[in-house]
């Protein structure tokens, strides 16, 4: 599987770069104090199955666009795989101890670095942070997210390296929000409408990489920012290659045309083979998303808890995980990823028991009709299950479900739609019966998921939020409200453990498994590391290097 052309280029290039590195390291001071490790060298070609097209991190975008944002921008702070915050553009992570956050969580004061510079050489200052926060609150700007930042008031620029503001109300997830709020330069938006600014296609960040070239529909070339304030970058160039077909991407990974396989990673059916490929490193990484069957709780069939419990008892999770997913993803009982500090590992375990399910439904008064389908008070236990069409794995899962549920007198009809349709009104306005989806209810490391579970967060019921299944539970509301207002993880933990218990009891959704993804890379590429607190593999691109 040698690719002659590629090998020749990279060898010649590496020799050239080694020569250049030798020269620059011989001359002291060249390249700036930040480059203690020597000039960046080498390139990495990363395969993505979707194309990043949005370069302004505050406009509506999808996961894959974050791949670029992490490379060319920095937030004030970020989160490592263990959930620990570390500073980037901030000089230190603000905490109650160091006075960065007041006791009541309302007053924030952040010290910033003095050595960060934008890609065009302009120094980074507190003005840029203020500008970014103001931009998010500008009603005329098409912001992708205002949660958290809409609470910011009275931003004060104490000095070019210190900024302070007040929050309208205490909001614990705010630090996590800051961790995914990339700072954009004020001077790039002077006098232009931010929605149409040239910046949106010629981004300027403070990050370890600069956007060098974009070939639409094909790839994006990033080059090292040699004036980066932090540790890194070690690579001279990173290429994000767009390969829409998974089979094709995997093939190019095998032949070596790409160095790393990111979104959407290796499919479970190739795991065994991929693991044993010579010269490749293939690992399973956790992911904060979980696969589940979502109920539309407004449908009469699902208002009965017995029905939901019976359906869970009759769901053959083990087979779905083993047979369809090759045993790769771990089974789960909750929406919280197992890597999280707030994960509840003592939730009642799932049992696959058809008899028990049947008994439960009999007891609850669901009687089998002439056609074998149960009925009660004029409501038949029949419903549709929908997911995005074209996803074979899900289609097979649906068939599994259909089969086992038939044994307990439930008629499930498969009704799949294209993604653009599913994620429109169908999902957000509760037009579905049940859905088979992969969902992530956490935004980063913070356990706050109020948006998904609060009673008043259901659009179908007139609320604002993402509670698309119309879940309403007063205790859950309470726990969520408390959890979001406390700052200490030790204090918050019991609340979220209890929340998981409540939801496991109520079963507004049937949890199947937590996603595990299978990234692959060439042996010798160090740095890529799973991080469930970030949305994409390139969160630490600045630290990647060839050894």
């Amino acid at each position, binding site marked *: 599987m040698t690719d002659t052309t590629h090998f020749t280029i990279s060898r010649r290039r590496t020799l050239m770069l080694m020569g250049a590195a030798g020269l620059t390291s011989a001359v002291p001071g060249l390249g700036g104090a930040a480059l203690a490790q020597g000039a960046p060298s080498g390139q990495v070609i990363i395969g993505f199955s979707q194309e990043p097209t949005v370069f302004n991190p505050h406009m509506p*975008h999808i996961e894959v666009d974050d791949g670029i944002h992490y490379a060319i921008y920095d937030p004030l702070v970020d989160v490592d795989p263990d959930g620990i915050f570390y500073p980037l553009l901030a000089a230190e992570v603000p905490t109650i101890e160091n006075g960065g956050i007041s006791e009541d969580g309302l007053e924030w004061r952040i010290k910033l670095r003095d050595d960060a510079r934008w890609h065009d050489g302009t120094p980074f200052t507190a003005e840029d942070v203020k500008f970014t926060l103001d931009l998010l609150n500008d009603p005329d700007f098409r912001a992708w997210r205002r949660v958290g930042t809409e609470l910011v008031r009275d931003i004060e620029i104490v000095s070019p390296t210190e900024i302070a503001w007040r929050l309208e109300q205490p909001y614990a997830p705010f630090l996590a929000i800051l961790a995914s709020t990339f700072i954009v330069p004020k001077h790039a938006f002077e006098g232009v409408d931010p929605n*149409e600014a040239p910046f949106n296609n010629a981004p300027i960040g403070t990050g370890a990489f600069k956007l060098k070239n974009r070939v639409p529909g094909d790839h994006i070339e990033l080059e090292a920012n040699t004036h980066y304030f932090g540790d890194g970058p070690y690579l001279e160039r990173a290429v994000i290659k767009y390969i829409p077909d998974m089979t094709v991407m995997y*093939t190019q990974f095998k032949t070596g045309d790409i160095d790393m396989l990111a979104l959407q990673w290796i499919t479970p059916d190739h795991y065994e083979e991929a693991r044993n490929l010579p010269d490749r490193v293939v690992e399973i990484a956790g992911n904060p998303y979980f696969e589940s069957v979502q109920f539309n709780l407004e449908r009469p069939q699902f208002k009965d808890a017995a029905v939901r419990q019976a359906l869970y008892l009759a769901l053959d999770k083990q087979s779905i995980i083993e047979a369809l997913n090759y045993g790769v993803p771990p089974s789960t009982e909750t929406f919280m990823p197992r890597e999280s500090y707030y994960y509840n590992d003592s939730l009642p375990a799932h049992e696959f028991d058809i008899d028990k399910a049947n008994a439960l439904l009999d007891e609850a008064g669901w009687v089998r009709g002439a056609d074998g389908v149960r009925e009660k008070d004029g409501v038949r236990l029949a419903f549709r299950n929908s997911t995005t069409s074209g996803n074979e794995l899900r289609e097979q899962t649906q068939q599994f479900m259909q089969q086992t549920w038939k044994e307990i007198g439930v008629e499930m009809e498969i009704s799949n739609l294209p993604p*653009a349709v599913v994620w429109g009104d169908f999902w957000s306005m509760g037009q579905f019966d049940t859905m088979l989806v992969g969902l992530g209810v956490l935004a980063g490391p913070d356990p706050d998921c109020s*948006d998904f579970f609060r009673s008043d967060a259901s659009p179908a019921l007139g609320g604002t939020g993402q509670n698309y299944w119309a879940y309403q539970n007063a205790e859950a509301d309470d726990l969520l409200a408390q959890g979001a207002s406390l700052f200490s993880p030790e204090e918050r933990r019991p609340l979220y453990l209890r929340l998981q218990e409540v939801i496991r009891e109520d079963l507004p959704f049937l949890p199947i498994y937590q996603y595990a993804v299978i990234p692959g890379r060439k042996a010798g590429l160090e740095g890529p590391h799973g991080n469930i607190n970030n949305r994409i593999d390139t969160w630490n691109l600045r630290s990647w290097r060839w050894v």
Partner: protein
Amino acid sequence: MTRYLLSRFWQSLVLLLLVSVIGFLVLNLMPGGPLSQYTRTPGMTREMLDRIAEQMGLNRPLPVQYADWAWNLVQGDWGKSYRDGRPVLTIIGDHLFATLLLMGVSTFFAMIIGAWMGIRSAVRQGSLFDHSATVIAMVGFSVPTFWLGLIAIFIFSLWLGWLPAGNMYTVGDGSVRDIAVHLILPAATLALVSVATWSQYMRTATLDVISQDFVRTARAKGLTERRVLMKHIVGNAVVPMITLAGMQLPTLLGGALVTETVFTWPGMGRLFLDSLGYQDYPVIMGLLMFSAMLVLAGNLLADLAIAFIDPRIRLD
């Protein structure tokens, strides 16, 4: 002639108008929309989506949106993509070269080889060559392009390691040689499938001509078989091929979706699929109009070419 061209021009305009209206209607009737991909972004609420939709002008009544788009189009502004905000014409332009290269090279070889195969089969009707050529053509018709492409990659990239597994060029290179090497597999795959069509058409067309009286006359006059072939048969057989070639114009610039996906070739076909997936209305409408214009232009060129070659045909 001018009158003919003018009348064709007006006809084309009416057709284009019709195409745009139908296309616009169908696009907007599809449930979902360009913002549906953002529904699952953490923190995205219904209100925010509605507000963004309003800012993008998606809440206006359809006729207003259409009129706006059409008026801009007529003035040369094809709109901007919903995904990256770049002008539609620029986006189309970006992908055009890649498609032109791939389709041009593969069509060229397919036509030459197909024509040769077709003529030879017709002239040696019933021979081993004829039968084998027909079988190859049947296989070529039936074989799905993606399967052929994947097999080609398997053999030549994975197994033998002779050719790259896809892409238009190696990042950092992009020299003519580099592109040529990357072009081999996808062009060959496409050509193989189209050769089938060309050879069969050519064969039928040639057989038609051979049975004509003037060929007998030419032979009777004592001309060599080769001269009969070159001067009389081929010239006449080529006429229906020109019509076919004209109809190829939209494909030439429209790209081959499947091949482009299998070989990661950044062409127009892929652009179309991507825009459809994201419901990027301006780009989809732009591509639709572009294809429609090409179809009309292709047909017109074919008609003019035939009239030029065959003096018996009159335009009007």
